[in-house]
């Protein structure tokens, strides 16, 4: 049986070149970068090289890169850190309704500390209207945070236009670019943002490493106190092997960007077109064209996502779902609900995300295996039976 990993939105495999680059720092080059003796030198240089590599990937300066433990930490740091550092100016924040929980739950925590939060809605494709952001602004708004791309439905947001709104009103603008960085060209100058989150495991780097790019001159309150690392903004001995891996992954992403986007877009567009052609009552979620390369997501009516996920898994295909049954809290995806989907349709959510190791044969395999699974679950579904009966009468 074929094994097809189609959950790159969850995490990507580590590139062999990245692993090779990391190995010395899991071996002899074990030193603490903060140490002044010889053992500290190679790790220290390696961390600074990685900083340059990551800065180059996003078009920023090395000193503007802060390494973090993962993407969620980057988002927590940006949202809480910037809001708290600016609270003398006001206590109001604007975010979109489809942000990742590491942004949304950070704003909930800020609410407990006296901040007020406005959530901007999205349209049926999950797109934020920059005008809605403008309308949500107040005199005491100290932060806007809107994601660059949504990992669940793949939609790319009009970050440049929102950045213009932020600039006109002189408000710091953070974007969660965790799903997009390394997968599409991301340039902080071009986007016009003030802070940007990214994570290594989204573009063939290691897990447990992320970064926050923070424009020079921006104020931020550290979440971790107690050390001089990362310019005093994030204390703690550096995860040197992971930082090196992130740097190498950034370098390779920049080098291979064009080829990767081309391959992933072709795989994506085939599945987006051919799966709904093979099955009735399947809707594409997210924007049909303006979305992450390699990202496909659907809602399959009359059945539930976990069943599909498990049956695909039994056929060697690894995917994700945003159905209530697959979430730990047993709640439907807030992204799909914000896009105006009913809870029943959202139950049929399924997400297949391609990576650079996938081929056209993988698409063929999915197109062969998926429809029988859907039909099998529909034959079991009382909702489908009801629909067929109603259609006949």
């Amino acid at each position: 049986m074929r094994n097809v990993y189609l959950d790159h939105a969850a995490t990507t495999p580590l590139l062999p070149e990245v692993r090779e680059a990391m190995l010395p720092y899991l071996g002899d080059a074990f030193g603490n970068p903060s140490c002044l003796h010889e053992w500290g030198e190679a790790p220290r240089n390696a961390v600074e090289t990685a900083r340059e590599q990551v800065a180059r990937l996003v078009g920023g300066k090395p000193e503007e890169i802060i390494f973090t433990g993962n993407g969620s930490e980057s988002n927590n740091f940006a949202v809480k850190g910037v809001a708290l550092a600016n609270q003398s100016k006001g206590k109001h924040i604007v975010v979109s309704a489809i942000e990742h929980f590491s942004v949304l739950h950070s704003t909930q925590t800020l609410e407990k500390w006296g901040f007020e939060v406005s959530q901007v809605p999205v349209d049926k494709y999950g797109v934020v209207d920059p005008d809605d952001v403008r309308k949500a602004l107040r005199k005491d708004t100290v932060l806007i945070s809107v994601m660059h791309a949504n990992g669940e439905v793949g939609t790319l947001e009009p970050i440049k236009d929102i950045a213009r709104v932020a600039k006109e009103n002189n408000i710091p603008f953070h974007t969660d670019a965790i799903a997009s960085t390394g997968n599409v060209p991301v340039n902080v100058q071009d986007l016009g943002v003030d802070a940007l989150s990214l994570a290594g495991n989204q573009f063939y780097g290691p897990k447990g490493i992320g970064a926050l790019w923070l424009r020079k001159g921006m104020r931020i309150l550290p979440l971790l106190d107690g050390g001089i690392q990362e310019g005093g903004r994030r204390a703690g001995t550096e995860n040197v092997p992971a930082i090196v891996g992130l740097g190498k992954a950034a370098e390779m992403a920049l080098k291979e960007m064009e080829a990767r986007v081309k391959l992933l877009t072709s795989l994506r567009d085939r599945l987006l077109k051919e799966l709904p052609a093979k099955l009735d009552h399947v809707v594409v979620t997210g924007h049909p064209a303006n979305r992450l390369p390699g990202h496909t997501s659907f809602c399959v009516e009359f059945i539930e996502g976990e069943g599909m996920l498990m049956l695909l898994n039994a056929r060697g295909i690894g995917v994700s779902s945003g159905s209530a049954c697959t979430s730990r809290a047993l709640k439907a995806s807030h992204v799909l609900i914000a896009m105006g989907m009913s809870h029943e349709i959202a139950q049929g959510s399924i997400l297949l995300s391609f990576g650079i190791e996938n081929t056209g044969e993988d698409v063929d395999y999915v197109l062969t295996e998926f429809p029988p699974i859907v039909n099998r679950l529909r034959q079991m579904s009382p909702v489908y039976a009801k629909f067929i009966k109603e259609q006949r009468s």
Partner: protein
Amino acid sequence: MPIYSDKVMDHFMNPRNVGEIENPDGVGEEGNPVCGDMMTFYIRVKDNRLEDIKFKTFGCGAAIAVSSMVSEMAMGKTLEEAMKITPQSVADELEGLPKNKFHCSNLGAQALHKAIDDYMGKKMGVKKESPSAAKQFEELIHVHCPYCESELEDKDSPFCQACHAELPHCPGCHEPVPKDANVCPHCGANI
């Protein structure tokens, strides 16, 4: 994805008795108002015994396995015996269900009981209503955090002792419910 027992996986991958019965002697439907899960049971009764049982289920892997297991447990049993099947006995036969799925996926016994009630009402003229799933949930003692699945030692506590998530409580059944739920996942009451 929750880790399912081998028995659950077997019943999910090879569900027994899927389908409908034409002109059934009884039909029972049970649903979970929160996620939209739905189970329908069809029964054929002969000499007070369940001669045939079929089901259809819209729901997760556990919900499908539960339906299949209930149909297998009840097949050939007398109506009285079938009425004694409980969510707990179904879960036991399945060698356990994930804690956070115990309530929401475990509606099969109720759906079967409703089918038997339907038969009694139609054929025997006996109007009887089995307690709905919600009622039976109240009798369950173990309560788990909807976020981290840890068993809650003090279910009246405003937060989970394990993961420190806030735990608002349902005004109806007083069970802990997810933070911004509009409907109680345990009893279906509006919050």
